[in-house]
């Protein structure tokens, strides 16, 4: 498969966006939002990771099957996280020790 031609400008724009998002993460760290600090930080990190995978790792320019594989990997990671968290986040809901 021929290598896709991506303009240098695109890389620079993505790079600047990534830096801006990092700055945003740092600044939001100073706000006190309780549990939402974590939610926002992870949301921003997810956007950053997607930009890197999409542009720098060329996932966006690959054949459909390769994109399916990439997205599949992410979905399986989310399965692992979500079902593990069903445990950690529901502990202590019952009025018995250890439940």
């Amino acid at each position, binding site marked *: 498969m021929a290598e896709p031609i991506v303009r240098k400008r695109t890389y620079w724009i993505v790079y600047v966006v990534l830096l801006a998002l990092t700055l945003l993460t740092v600044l939001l760290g100073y706000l006190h939002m309780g549990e939402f600090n974590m939610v926002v930080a992870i949301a921003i990190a997810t956007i950053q990771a997607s930009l890197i995978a999409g542009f720098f790792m060329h996932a966006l320019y690959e054949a459909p*099957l390769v994109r399916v594989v990439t997205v*599949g*990997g992410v979905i*399986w990671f989310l*399965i*692992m996280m979500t*079902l*593990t968290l*069903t*445990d*950690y986040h*529901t*502990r*202590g*809901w*019952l009025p018995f020790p*250890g*439940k």
Partner: protein
Amino acid sequence: MTTPQAPPAAPSHIDYLSERQGIWPWLLTTDHKRIGLLYTASITGFFFIGGFFALLMRLHLLEPKGALFGLETYNKLFTMHGIIMVWFFLIPSIPGTLGNFLIPMMIGAKDLAFPKLNLASWYVFMTGGIVTLYSMLRGGVDTGWTFYVPFSTTYSTAYVAGAAIGIFIAGFSSIMTGLNFIVTIHRMRAPGMTWFRMPIFLWSMYATSLVLVLATPVLAITLLMVIFERLFRVGIFDPSLGGDPVLFQHMFWFYSHPAVYIMILPAMAVISEIIPTFSRKPIFGYTAVAYSSLGIAVVGFLVWGHHMFVAGLSVYSAMAFSFLSYLVAIPSAIKVFNWTATMVKGSVSWDTPMLYAIGFLGLFTIGGMTGLFLAALGIDVHVTDTYFVVAHFHYIMVGGAVMGYLGGVHYWWPKISGKMYPEGLARLSALIVFIGFNLTFFPQFILGYLGMPRRYAAYPDEFQFLHVLSTAGATILGVGYILPLCYLIWSWKYGKPAGRNPWRATGLEWQTSSPPPSHNFEVTPVCTHPAYDFEGMKEELELA
């Protein structure tokens, strides 16, 4: 002056076995069939090593206080039995041997998509196996095959890191094999071989490969974390270092439950070929059977919490995992019912592969149904970590996976070796395996229900009768496994020539000579029939 051109060389009919002899042409081969045989030899060796440990354990348990070993040695025996059987026999068994041999032939290709990667996978597998065997010889491992923390990271004084590194290495061979199969099935199918004309074997192997690729990396990371915490005191699982011990179980079973499907899906692949051939009927509900493999592969990733019901898993999480575990029974049941329906009004014959297939049907059903007992929260509390669990998973892994493997080896042996094995002896040993297996493991259901814990080297006097039955069964089972080894090796040299298609089966692999030429087919085959089209191919099959 011109010399007349030499006549074009006649197409070579040299088969893959008699071409280039000697040790190097075998050790450096990229022929998927030869690599399949390399795998066969290796996993057979591992199987008998692991089986030897099992036999020692059963002999020890003849007496309530234990007949042979100290407690520590017993711990090492069941650990090494588990590690070898799971990672060095069951996981690579059918994919490494029959999968390697058959996938390219069934889709009408000359080889897998990446022949060199295939050879590399065998070397990586052997490296992992040797590292693990070496740490066993140096002193053994005593954690159980599950490597539970904190014992494995903090307290065990055995060679935990060495064994874990061996398994870590072997994992890469799983990933290479899975990747190779996925790409091959996507890219290398012969003209006319559409997805829904593929034999069910390929659907099942495809689903297996997906699980191999998606699950194995998680095991690798988990073992690496165990090694890091053990050697460098990095806080991952140890609460005093800020870690969480239950996290280990989440990550371990995220791999190890799907690993059960890495073992059983390939056996289902084999059964789905044997039953139509010996019933002379297309498989009942092709589409449902094909999709149920994918269903098992996907839903199998959502159920791992059922191993942790008494390990501190929260109640709500346990309820979710219990429900999802029931769900995974649906695609398995679809297969069992459809295989049975395939036999209805078929012209059933009782050749050896079919005996193994029928045995599989019964034993897998018992194994699966007792799995539902274990998915029920209330019953699980009672039987967790007892012989009930041991019996359950041996019904799946030995009654299911090993029966499937043996059935497949017999079914494709004429293709692999070009020879027939002695049918009478083969039927007899299939029967011996079935009887020995049930005598070994059925008493363990009762033992477990009565409260016999797994991994104990001693037990109360009143359990002795059932333990003795189980040991007696194990010796019979041992005979049932040694017999095929002997007569298959014998037939390699002295068996009757098999011919192209001794079972009058429909797959492309039967349309080439036995043993096949190096590149499988003299001309690239064109697939013109749906799978299992016994009616449509009647004339071709009569001529075979």
